[in-house]
């Protein structure tokens, strides 16, 4: 593989890892926020346990979203400085807004939410998780604005060999954005609901002690999957017209064709299964009928495979362009990037992030299996005084 291939592969692997964690963040945040709001309104201890249990899953997952996101943010400057020198005056704007207006606040409010149990007033504590959700969605908006600009460089004109921002508003009305954004957000809700649904089905199938806890959780998870899968599929179809007008050859290659076939085939099959089973939420039949639980567990990982298929379709389908029709991927590479540098950074980033991703998934599975009995999120604080030194006995 040459330098361009390695740099592309590095972006693809880190980007897809990032996507797997971020899509669950986007889906779980509103579900946890809803649980926390119900706790604040009703004071029902069951909702406190649900908020802490699903909140802990959300938080463990969030960590890897940050780690992979850091590498994404800096990778443009490391490997693709041709992009910043040609289109940075336009492309840099949504990325700058993402860090300043979205991620800065998201991370700060998440810190307040994680560590603020026992010290923030209840309403303000709930406000924190809603602000985390809001800023996470703002993040998704700005990143999709940036990506859509690469797909279809609206809002800019070329002057003196560089792209110049002409119409800021046009970045947000980009035909590549308007249907793709709800498509991705729908997939997030689908993924978040799917994890809640699959984990609840696991506990109900195993007949663990937490019957009421997981019956209620199952309801929330299945409803989120019903809504999320519908939004995803609907806005998947509405993209076809727009893609045909801006990137007519998008689905001609092998990878995009396979990707779109997988999304339509598997995506709609899962949607059909969940829509058929959802009426069984009536009188909690779904929680009581044990034969349905393995089905729910099997279809739970589907949205994660589908988002990768979606990413591959969208990104491979516009090759060889980085900025469609304007700047090729090969021309965007950092000048003078050596095979040694890209190989070393590839091995380091992919090795470290891959290892940590496996650790993180293991921790998520472990937290799910342990159930709501032992949850660290919201556990009591410890005294700031030093622990007494153990007395020596002579």
């Amino acid at each position, binding site marked *: 593989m040459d330098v361009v291939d390695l740099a592309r592969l590095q972006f693809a692997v880190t980007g897809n890892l990032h996507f797997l964690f971020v899509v669950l963040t986007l889906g779980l945040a509103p579900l946890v926020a809803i649980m926390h709001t119900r706790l604040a309104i009703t004071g029902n201890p069951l909702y406190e346990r649900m908020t802490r249990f699903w909140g802990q899953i959300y*938080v*463990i997952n969030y*960590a890897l979203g*940050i*780690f992979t996101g*850091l*590498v994404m*943010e*800096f990778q*443009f*400057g*490391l*490997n*693709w*400085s041709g*992009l*910043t*020198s040609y289109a*940075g*005056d336009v492309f*840099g*704007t949504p*990325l*700058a*807004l*993402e*860090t*300043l*207006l979205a*991620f*800065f*606040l998201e*991370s*700060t*409010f998440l*810190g*307040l939410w*994680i*560590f*603020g149990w026992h*010290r923030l007033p209840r309403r303000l504590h709930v406000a924190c998780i809603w602000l985390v959700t809001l800023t996470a969605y703002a993040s998704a908006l700005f990143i999709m604005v940036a990506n859509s600009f690469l797909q279809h460089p609206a809002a800019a004109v070329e002057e003196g060999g560089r792209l110049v921002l*002409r119409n*800021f508003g046009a970045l947000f009305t980009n035909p590549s954005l308007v249907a793709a954004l709800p498509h991705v957000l729908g997939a997030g809700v689908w993924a978040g609901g799917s994890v809640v649904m699959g984990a609840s089905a696991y506990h109900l199938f195993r007949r663990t002690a937490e019957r009421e806890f997981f019956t209620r959780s199952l309801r929330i998870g299945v409803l989120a999957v019903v809504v999320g899968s519908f939004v995803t599929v609907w806005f998947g179809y509405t993209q076809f017209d727009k893609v045909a007008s801006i990137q007519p050859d998008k689905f001609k290659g092998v990878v995009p064709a396979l990707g779109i076939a997988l999304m339509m085939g598997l995506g709609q099959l899962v949607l059909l299964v969940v829509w058929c089973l959802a009426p069984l939420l009536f009188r909690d039949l779904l929680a009581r009928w044990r034969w349905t639980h393995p089905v729910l567990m099997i279809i739970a990982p589907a949205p994660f495979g589908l988002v990768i298929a979606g990413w591959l379709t969208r990104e491979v389908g516009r090759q060889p362009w980085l900025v469609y029709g304007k700047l090729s991927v090969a021309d965007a590479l*950092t000048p003078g*990037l050596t095979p040694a*540098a890209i190989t070393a950074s590839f091995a*380091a*980033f992919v090795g470290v*992030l891959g290892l*940590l991703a496996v*650790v993180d998934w293991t921790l998520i599975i*472990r937290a799910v299996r342990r159930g709501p009995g032992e949850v*660290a999120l919201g*556990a009591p*604080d*410890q*005294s*700031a005084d*030093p*622990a007494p030194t153990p007395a020596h006995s002579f």
Partner: protein
Amino acid sequence: MEIVWFTTFAVLLAGYFALEGFDIGLGVLLPVLGRSPAARDRLVGAMAPFVLANEVWLLALAGVLFGAFPALEGTVLSGLYPLVVVVLLAWIVRDAGLWFRRRAGGARWRLVWDGAVCAGSAGLALGWGAALTAVARGLPDSPLDPLGLAGGVALLALLAWHGRTFAAWRLDGARGGALLLSACAAALPAVLVVAGAAGRMLGDAAPDQTLTVLGVMVVPFVPFLVGAQVWVWRTFSKGALPTFF
């Protein structure tokens, strides 16, 4: 507009070292100040609620670099390629240590991730010191020479002192004056380096239209950005220590 964004950049960089500097320093000192597992829990508990709010200053800095100084972003990051990779990896390893250390039981598990916190923090300090030295020298071809290493060790010592004063303030009731002093000292090298690069940065800013759009979008949110940070300090400066990290 260039001046406004240059100042923003300088403030974010100074804020990063003044705030995240004590997390890094305390991480480096973790095995020194925390000889027992309980003592390390206490040190980590002291900085834990601040880490997320502190490290975002660097992300915001990268955003400003990308949005307002895009031409420079490519030159500086790719010019410092090995150091940027080291800093990123060290940052990830340090964060992984913090997020994972209490996620499973067992003394060995905790020890491994405490080691990650310490090693990652040391890598961050050394990498940043070498990077600042390299920028001050105008991006030499091999930034990891003896001078670069000396810069790294100097910053490591400075941040370790800053971490020590933070721990004394938060855990042992020391007064805030020393912490303020060490915070200013931690930010000083970065501020000097950026001041030295001011001419180059102002010349390489994005066109006015881009800078104006960024300004119009960001200014209304500044009270929220500042307010969120103040809220963190008001909430976690005193009292018992959270136990999630």
